[in-house]
């Protein structure tokens, strides 16, 4: 399955407890450079806990956590970022009132000058922002315009572009298409594909099987804190995946009732 040898990120039998709650109970998955791993699971399957553990927000209770083949423990999101694991959360970590540029460089501003005269290199920041947006195909009229004026899809792309720009090797996308319309979804999916082609590993979290099928190379299904299995594209059909994700029978019944559209 590995195309390039060592996976960029790999977990084996990852376990995470919150007090008496067992959020993750043996999760195994890995992602290599140049592939999109789709992490599928219904609500409560443990997707968010898994992301937060991968991103350094939580520390795993037990299990192996390997970055490029070496065991690592992230004690903060900053650690994860430095190791090249960037997460784009559902809420995007974008601030609507701030300009596109200020959002793009939030926390990692390019500076010029020394000591007390150190300041943001606004011109360079604006230029980089404009160039990065252009690469995605978003024409930012003025990078100083507030992020609040962008559409949901555009914001998602800006958030991804930001992670890529700051040297992410693994990109974790938390339901990037969940709140988007059709055109905007395709814009985001297209961009995910573009990112994959540039050699990054992408972990795409979703509960929409069709979106997963559109860009995924492999699919890992999560249910009740465990991985049910990993399948390569072509190994499994859409509805099989759907059923696996939902835990089977009930959905089939409902689906039959509604004429097979779920």
């Amino acid at each position, binding site marked *: 399955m590995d195309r390039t040898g060592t996976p960029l990120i790999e977990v084996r039998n990852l376990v995470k407890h919150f007090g008496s709650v067992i959020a993750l109970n043996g999760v195994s998955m890995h992602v290599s450079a140049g592939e999109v791993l789709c992490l599928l699971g219904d609500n409560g399957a443990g997707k968010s806990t898994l992301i937060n553990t991968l991103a350094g927000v939580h520390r795993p209770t037990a299990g192996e956590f390997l970055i490029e083949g070496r065991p690592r423990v992230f004690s903060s999101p900053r650690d994860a970022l430095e190791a090249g694991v960037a997460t784009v959360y559902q809420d995007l970590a974008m601030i609507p009132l701030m300009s596109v540029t200020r959002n793009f460089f*939030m926390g990692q*501003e390019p500076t010029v000058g020394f000591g007390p005269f150190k300041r943001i290199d606004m011109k360079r920041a604006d230029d980089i922002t404009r160039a990065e947006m252009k690469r995605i195909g978003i024409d930012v009229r003025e990078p100083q315009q507030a992020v609040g004026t962008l559409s949901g899809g555009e914001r998602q792309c800006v958030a991804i572009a930001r992670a890529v720009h700051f040297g992410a090797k693994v990109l974790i996308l938390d339901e990037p298409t969940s709140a988007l319309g059709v055109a905007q979804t395709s814009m985001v999916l297209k961009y995910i594909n573009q990112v994959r082609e540039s050699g990054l590993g992408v972990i795409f979290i979703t509960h929409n099987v069709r979106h997963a099928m559109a860009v995924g190379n492999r699919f890992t299904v999560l249910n009740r804190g465990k991985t049910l299995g990993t399948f390569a594209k072509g190994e499994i059909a859409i509805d099989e995946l759907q059923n696996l994700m939902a835990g089977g029978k009930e959905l089939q019944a409902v689906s039959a009732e509604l004429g097979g559209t779920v």
Partner: protein
Amino acid sequence: MSTITEKNPPPGGTSDERLRKASFATTLLRRPELGAVAGLVLVSLFFAFTANPAMFTLAGVMNFMAPAAQLGILAVGAALLMIGGEFDLSIGSMVAFAGLVFGAALVVWNLPLPVAILIAFAFAVVVGSVNAQIVLRTGLPSFIVTLAFLFILRGLTLVGLKWASGGSTQLRGMREAAAGSILAPIFSGDAFGGLFTWLGQAGIIETFPSGLPTVPGIPVEILWFVVIALLATWVLLRTSFGNWIFAAGGDPKAARKSGVPVDRVKIILFIVTASCATLVAVLTVLDAGSTDARRGFQKEFEAIIAAVIGGCLLTGGYGSAIGAFFGSIVFGMVLIGLTYTSIDQDWYLVFLGGMLLLAVVFNNVIRKRVTGER
């Protein structure tokens, strides 16, 4: 994959046809300090017609700029903190408390002026940190935490003053104690005295019959005010820390995820507001030569109002330091300007409330403009 249709990005230069070109007026509306500048123009026009022309002579301008500066130093600090998403209602009481600490260091312990100033600012760091730690650790709104300190500090000042002065609520003798110190000219009196004497002799500014200028120099608090407003604006708009202030106030969660040290930013901002209050205390105590329990009374509200007039949103993440600068000048103008008119001075309070209401409504509209909300 194949179903995704290629959406051609518009060729370079041309913009999205659905986006109207931002007009000059819209661009202007995006500036948070617009309201304060508009307010300043309106108030100036009002007094130009109603007030005695003496108000806009050099002496008159210094007259209203001095209280504007005292309020403005607080307002700029308050504005930074508000943009950072927090309030500090204790700054008015902090002025009194810092006045007590500073005064006691000078006249009770007979310490030299530089040491007294250092001690006063050390207390500012402590009070600011305590405010910040409580707010950050409990997750309670800073509004309520600092409201508690509004009373605690005011009470401590009363108790402390009685102890320091032997039963009175006033402490005297600071000017004499500070006289002759090398730092005294930086924190008291008028600056550029030589220049003003020369201007008077050259006939450029008005003089008394004796030949001395009617305005002996620029009161130092005005210089402090201008320097602090410029510095705050630069930090806010041109440094990483400024970006973090906007981020911390706009959405602390998002900021944290992007690697912004939100807690550190807020701690520093609380220390900044307490330090601004301390600076005002040092300036006004040296100016008056005494301190009392009512120093800085209700200044926290005026400072916040000035910041709001200056374009700060109550919800944080948006605003301007230079706006607070203009907002404070509006205040000084109205407070002093009314004495140049035949209008009852107590209209000041009515104005204060009215201006606040207007500013809040205006800011709300602006915010929607900025974020493109409908």
